[in-house]
Structures are given as C-alpha cells and as structure tokens.
C-alpha cells in the first residue's frame, strides 16, 4: 500500500506582507536539484512584486523598529524554535538544493538554526556596543544610540541557499530594519520555505518579504527604489554589484558590498549587525543644581 501512495507536492509561493502570493506576473521557473532533477516551479517575481514587497516592508517598519529590543529577541528566538521543528524539511531542501548528503545538509541546517539563536540574543545588546555616552567638554548630557536604517534589500548568497540566507537576513531584522530578500536564484526553495516559518513565528507581516526569480531582474528596481534605504549586495556578481551600487546612489542607500565568504559556519562578527544602523546623538543641557539663572 505504501508504494501506491502519491505524495503531495508543495506549491512554492512568495512571502510578502505576511501573505503567500504568487507572482503577480503569473510567471514561474523550474527549480532543479544539484543533479538536474526537477524540484518545483518557483515564482518568477516581477518588478511589480518587488515594489509590492517594498510597500509591505515600509508599512511594517515603524512597528518593528518600535518594538522593544527584548521583544524582537523573543520573536527571533521563536523563529529558531519553529526552524527546529521543521528541521527535517530543511535538511531535505538544502540537500536537494546544494547537492549535499543528508548528514552534511543536517549540519548546515543546525548551523543556521544556531545562527538565528545567536542573532536573537543580539537584539538587546547591539545598542550597548554600538552606542554610548560621549563626554563632551561642556555642561551637556550627550548620548549616541544606534537606530535601524529602514527598509533593506538583501540579495541572498547564491551558493549557500539557507545558512548563507539566514546569516545575511537575521542581522538586518535583529536591529529593527525590515527586509526584502531576493532568494538564491538557482536554489530558492529553502528561502521560500523560510517564509512559512516566519509566518508562524510571531514575526509581524512585512518585516521579511521573500522574492524568488532572476536576481538581476528583481534587484534593479529595488536598488533604484526611492523608499529603500539599504542594500546588501551579497548575492550579486561584480558586474551586477557595480550597476546596483550606481543606482543606489540616487537616494544614497547604505550599501554593503559583496564580500567573499568561504565558510558560512565561521564566526560572523558584528559587521553585518552594524551595517544597517544609523547613529543618533542627542544633546541636552545638564544645568547645575543650586545655580541661579539660565542653564543654557
């Protein structure tokens, strides 16, 4: 009887604004395994899908940035819990996508889950390493605090479809930004499945939006978009990266250039956490007790 059971395929869909739409263009493209076997038809996102994702990310920004850092940490930790529960699914998808053995794919997924946990713990610590009190030479209280940049477009790494993806996405949202992620072009399925995890992890809709398709086609309108504030070019080759960086100059997006990553399991450091932060410095006169007259 077991031989006769036909498995149920999953329709992979985009994740935008907390919902799972197909591409508005109606287009899909074939996703194959490392060995060339058909895995699924993934949405081939259009420029319009990209713009819709920006609208969703902008709408979510105020609420997400405004949450307490503790709360953002709780939500991100919840994502790790959900990932753990779906571990087998991700091991299968990563093995298919990257041509890895089950055990190697298992190690990759474990590393990705651990990375979520790592970043979950950063949410309420980053202000203390990136901000601080400034001892100005005058009677002023002076404090610098990091704040999220806004809506960040992330070109996920092309090769590391899951651990790489998690490693570039988690720091962006941990600090309060919202993200539009372009999944690995050849291996988008783990990213699209991650959307399903995020949807069930208390993460407000729109904080992360996942698009699949041709990286260059989707990235171009996002790099030029006036309501996008940051751009992580991780998944772009040299030619595309330059083109996108030129477009990004139009509204002075913060751009993180592609940096070679040999080993995604290595300690990521804090530079991805601080790449999409602004520093705000607030001054106030301290006055003086018992003195007469103006404290200014």
């Amino acid at each position, binding site marked *: 009887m077991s031989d006769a059971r036909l498995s149920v395929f999953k329709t992979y869909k985009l994740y935008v604004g907390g919902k799972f739409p197909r591409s508005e263009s109606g287009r899909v493209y074939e996703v194959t395994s490392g060995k060339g076997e058909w895995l699924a038809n993934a949405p081939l996102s259009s420029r319009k899908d990209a713009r819709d994702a920006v609208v969703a990310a902008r709408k979510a920004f105020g609420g997400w940035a405004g949450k307490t850092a503790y709360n953002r940490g709780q939500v991100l930790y919840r994502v790790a819990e959900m990932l753990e529960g779906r571990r087998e699914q991700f091991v299968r998808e990563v093995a298919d996508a990257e041509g890895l053995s089950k055990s190697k794919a298992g190690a990759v997924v474990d590393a990705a889950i651990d990375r979520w946990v790592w970043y979950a713990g950063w949410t309420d610590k980053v202000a203390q390493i990136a901000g601080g009190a*400034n001892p*100005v*030479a005058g009677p002023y209280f002076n404090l610098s605090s990091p704040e999220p940049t806004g809506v960040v477009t992330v070109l996920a790494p092309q090769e590391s479809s899951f651990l790489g993806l998690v490693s570039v996405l988690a720091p962006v949202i941990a600090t309060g930004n919202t993200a539009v992620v372009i999944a690995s072009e050849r291996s988008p399925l783990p990213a699209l499945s991650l959307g399903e995890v995020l949807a069930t992890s208390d993460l407000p809709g729109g904080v992360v939006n996942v698009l699949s398709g041709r990286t260059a086609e989707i990235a171009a309108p996002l790099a030029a978009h006036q309501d996008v504030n940051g751009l992580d070019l991780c998944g772009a080759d040299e030619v595309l990266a*330059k083109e996108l960086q*030129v477009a990004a*100059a139009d509204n002075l997006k913060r751009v993180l250039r592609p940096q070679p990553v040999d080993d995604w399991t290595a300690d990521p450091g804090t530079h991805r956490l601080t790449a999409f932060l602004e520093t*705000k410095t*607030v*001054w106030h006169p301290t006055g003086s007790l018992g003195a007469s007259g103006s404290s200014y």
Partner: protein
Amino acid sequence: MAEMTPTTNNPFAYAPAPESRSVVDIAPSYGLFIDGEFTEAADGKVFKTVSPATEEVLSEVAQAGAADVDRAVKAARKAFEKWSALPGAERAKYLFRIARIIQERSRELAVLETLDNGKPIKETRDADLPLVAAHFFYYAGWADKLDHAGYGADPRPLGVAGQVIPWNFPLLMLAWKIAPALATGNTVVLKPAETTPLSALFFADICRQAGLPKGVVNILPGYGDTGAAIVAHDDVNKVAFTGSTAVGKEIARTVAGTEKKLTLELGGKGANIVFDDAPIDQAVEGIVSGIFFNQGQVCCAGSRLLVQESVQDELLDSLKRRLTTLRLGDPLDKNTDIGAINSAEQLARITALVETGEAEGAERWSAPCELPSSGYWFAPTLFTNVTQAHTVARDEIFGPVLSVLTFRTPEEAVAKANNSQYGLSAGIWTEKGSRILAVAERLRAGVVWANTFNKFDPTSPFGGYKESGFGREGGRHGLEAYLDV
C-alpha cells in the same frame, strides 16, 4: 561698518572694535603642498582667493590638476608605509604637537579664517579654532588605543585617504577629516574649497613645524574638478566628502564597484521644534544660533522652525525683536554677529531661493539693516506662512534664511520634521522631559539638540540619516571610517 539699528540716540550703539589683522601674514601667493614641499601646479594654473567682506584679493593660490593629484597620491602612498607602521604612541605625539601648535597660533588662524571665509571673528575665535585644536587632541589620544575601540584587535588603516571639504568651516572640516585619518595610520590628500584655501595651507605649515613626515599630509587647493580627480584616483583607498548632496551622489556613483570606503556628510534642512511650554527667550536664542550661526551656512542649521500654533505670535514677535539687535558687518569686529556670505555665487543662490519663496507666496521679513556697499551680504530673513510644499521649506538654502511652519500636536511636529529628503539635525524646545525623549526617538536625524542647538564636540558623533549622507565624524564612531573594519 553697517549696523542693524540706526545709531542715532541708540543707547546700545557700539564703537567699532576690530581685531587686528597684523597677527596674520598672508603671502601674495601659495603653492600646492605635496610631499612636504610647496610647489607650483604642473600646468602653472593659479586662482585668486578674496575676502568676501571686502572683495579684496587676499592671495593667489596654485590650482591642482590631475597630474598634481597623481603626484600627491603617490607621495601619500609612499609615506603610508612608514606612517602606518609607526607605533600608535608615536603617531599620537605628532597629533598632540599639531593640536598644541594650533592652540598657540589660534588667534592668527582665527583672523585668517575670518578674512578668507567672511564669518565673524567671534565665531572663529570662540568656536572654530577651539574645536579644531580639541579635535586633534581628541584623536591624538586614540592613535595608541585602537585595539580598544571596539573594532577588534589591531584594526588596520585603509591607506591613502582622499578628502574634499567645504568652505563653511574650512579649518574645522580639515580637522574632522585629517585628525582621525592620521590617528588610525592613514595618509591624506585633502582639497580645501576654492573660496577658502588659506587655512589649509597654513595647516601645511603647522605640519612642517610639528615635524610631520613628508607626504603624510598633502594639500591640493582647487575647484570641483580637482576633487573629482582625487575621488576617482585608482590608488585612493578612502574617500571622505563634506558638501552638497548632489555632489555626494556623484561621488557615490564614482566609487561604486571599487574597494574605496566612502563617508559622506551632506546637506540638511533641520527642523527646530518649539512646543508651547518652551521657555520662549531661551528658544529664541536657540533659533538664532540655529539658523544665523555662520550666516546660516551650516549643513546642520535649524532652517525650518516648527512652532506650536498657540505660541506662534509670541515667539515670532520675540524672534523679530531679537533679530533687529543682531549686528551685521565687518567680520573682524569683535561685536559682529553676522558676517559676510562666503562668495558671490552663494549670495546669488540664496537670493534666488528667497525670490522663489516670495514668488510662491511665503511672507518675507528681513531684519532692517544696512548692508555694506562692497562684499557679499544678506540680511537675516524669515519666511512665515510657509507650507511643506514651499521650496523654502524643502531645499537647503545655506544662508541666513529661516522658514517658519506651525503644528498643533507632537505627532504633527514629528511628521513635518521628518518630511524631508534630509536627516542631519533637529532641535526640540520643551520643558517636558518625557516629550523630549519621545520626540527625539522619532526624529529621523543624526543629531538632535534638545533645549540647545548647534553644539559640537570631538567626542560626539556627527552625521546624517537619509540623503544627508552616511558615516559619522567624531567620537569612537569616527574611527570606523578610516579603519579596514
């Protein structure tokens, strides 16, 4: 010297109190400063720098071309090897020397800056120069403590820094650029603005007095094309620019696809928000310093006054009364509040934007004052009946022009303040602490002054959100721009 109020029977009339020019000796001509030597430009080009208060030619300065840029970058590259290898404590001592020499020569430099820039001696003496010395002193101390700056152990310098600075705070902007660059072990090629090259050339002499190794600091006066050549040079590893947003975007395009690290400090349209419970007299002083400090030629100027509707009349009466007491005239006079506009071009820009403001229906009020017959001058001006759509509420004027808008609720104030392509500075005036914190948190601006305005300090990071640029200058944050981290 012209004064804002008629002097007849004015009990507040001041006698002229000019600072002596004799403290500074300006040579008839200056060369480029490359590899420790003053030299002519390869193509022999020169330009004149004038005093904007009198249009008197102060000196003739060599104008660097592409060949000179290449020579300066080569000198900086050559010097980088030894400079970056020096123990931090030794680099620190050079910077401490420079800070001390600046303090010693601060009166001379203040007078020079006032002559070349047109700003009041009161400001160069009490703000620019003390901050310049403090900035070098502050970053000197970092040079041997970089391991502890939070960027990992032994953070490395980038190499040759190409730096392009504006004319509004010529020597202070030089300090903001050169001090952190040298402290972290980089060498520099710096272009001062074409209208204010002199203090940078005097700084070259200070480097000589300090015994700074040749090639560590190179100064290339010139126009925009000189700056563009520095930015585009293949052997420059770091670009730092302070200036207009339009040029900043062009620079961002130029360095795209290269390894050059970029920081930009660009335009602003700062909102200065006055709530109904603010102490009006103190707020008025803050508004005045916010927009009329340095004739409003300040990127972080509080050029949009957002006043709560219920106190608008009282505040504006008080503000106008205060503006009539400002003294406009000879920048070297110690009683002068408002000096000259830096150049004929800038005056034309201000004039055109003010004309646009009037044409668009905003109501103009200018302080009644007589402008000197020579030089470039603009009376302190404010616009009322301004809406968010008006050009004078949106575009950076970079002059002594204040646009007044009103609001009813804190939410409206925040929304209007943030309704700008810029995000450099903002001000908040209220006696209510929780409101300060709530509003400050929601303002998208890099510097927020609460119950004060236009305060600067080397320990305090400065820089913008949005199209006001990226990166920070000052404080521990300011090191990052010059480190390979």
